């Protein structure tokens, strides 16, 4: 039975393909698919035509079971469309509308089959309307399944983007900067969780070895909140650096954060300064350097540079 039904369905689609396509496109355009300007009408038309062709092939060969291998190509194209929409920043609704807006043209096409049968007399009408009811149900199920598939791929694409951005952020925001011979700075930006602490700690310790640094300044100006966990991560980094033989100075502790830390009972057992400049001054003193004012005269400049 189902084979018969879907055979009729495939035939219906094949017969009315051009009408379905133009109706589908018109629906999507009136639904605002082109408004964002992220996709051109020609591109949308190509996507729709390709998908409709493949859907028809699937219906002809695989019935209405979306899991059938005959639908493989159609699903691939659908996945590709959904993925590209995920990348282009379409909303989930806009992506789902691509499949679901196909329902109305399909139902209209089925109705037209009944109308055509009406010309032939009573028995044909009854048979056609029975077949149409069944086909309608099949088409609904099929398109729902395909719609869900599209959403799944869409969400996956978005999650991939989020994961990639997360990785990029953790790489970007942990540079170790050399301020002077033997003095490193580690400007921390963003929340410190255990995963990032690990990355930060490793890159700091490795740089301490590479540059034989004596002092590392950890600047937490860019850390929005310091709770007990963050403080613990911070202390771990300091302790590890100390084990390597380098002193740490924590700088950039904002007044509110200092208050929070004291209230929480977190004691930073390290030298801490309010600003990076203060910390740098301390660091220079510890390595026995001082910043002095250079003579301003242009002629004296090269001499002064050499003397230092």
């Amino acid at each position, binding site marked *: 039975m189902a084979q018969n039904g879907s055979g009729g369905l495939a035939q219906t689609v094949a017969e009315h393909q051009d009408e379905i396509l133009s109706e589908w496109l018109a629906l999507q355009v009136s639904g605002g698919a082109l408004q964002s300007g992220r996709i051109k009408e020609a591109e949308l038309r190509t996507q729709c035509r390709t998908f409709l062709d493949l859907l028809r092939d699937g219906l002809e060969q695989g019935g209405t079971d979306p899991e059938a291998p005959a639908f493989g190509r159609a699903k691939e194209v659908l996945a590709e469309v959904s993925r590209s929409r995920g990348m282009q920043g379409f909303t989930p609704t806009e992506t789902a509308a691509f499949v679901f807006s196909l329902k109305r043209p399909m139902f209209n096409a089925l109705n037209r089959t009944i109308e055509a049968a009406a010309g032939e007399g009573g028995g044909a009408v009854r048979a056609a309307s029975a077949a149409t009811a069944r086909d309608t149900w099949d088409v609904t199920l099929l398109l729902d399944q395909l719609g869900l598939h599209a959403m799944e791929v869409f969400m996956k694409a978005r999650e991939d983007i989020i994961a990639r951005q997360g990785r990029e952020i953790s790489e970007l925001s942990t540079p170790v900067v050399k301020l002077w011979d033997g003095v490193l700075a580690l400007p921390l930006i963003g929340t410190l969780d255990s995963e990032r602490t*690990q990355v930060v700690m490793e890159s700091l*310790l490795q740089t301490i*070895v590479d540059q034989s640094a*004596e002092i590392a300044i950890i600047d937490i100006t860019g850390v929005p909140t310091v709770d007990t966990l963050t403080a613990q991560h911070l202390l771990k980094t300091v*302790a590890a650096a*100390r*084990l*390597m033989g380098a002193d740490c100075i924590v700088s950039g502790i904002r007044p509110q954060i200092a208050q929070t830390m004291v209230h929480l009972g977190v004691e930073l057992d390290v030298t801490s300064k309010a600003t990076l400049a203060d910390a740098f001054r301390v660091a220079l003193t510890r390595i026995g350097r001082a910043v002095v004012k250079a003579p301003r005269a242009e002629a004296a400049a090269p001499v002064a540079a050499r003397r230092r």
Partner: protein
Amino acid sequence: MDRIPILKLGDALLVTIQVDMHDRLAAALEEDLTERIAATGAKGVLIDISSLGIVDSFIGRMLDTVAAVSRMLGADTVVVGMRPAVAITLVELGLELKGVRTALNVERGMALIGRWLEDGDGDERDGPAAGDANDGDGG
């Protein structure tokens, strides 16, 4: 059984751990070092662990104990050349070795000991590692 050599360098003892430490070796080192400090009257002990790729909690605690025992005998300990991975492991194990001074390499470690010897009898300590924290870990 293998023993780790302890070299005397002026008023300081130099221990370079070149092999992977196992527990008995560590216990033997602790014992030998204590005896050598007492015998030579050394004022500083430098332990170079730059070849150690793996440090477990036992070795970590051994370092702490050696430092505490040495201090009782009047010598200060500096551990040098700890690798980043080892430092991270020790911190994760909760062994921060608060009673031990550290330096990046042997050269800096010797300079540190030299400064202590210049300062006098080794009781004075410069830098942020406070004496109070050391006493707490001694027991």
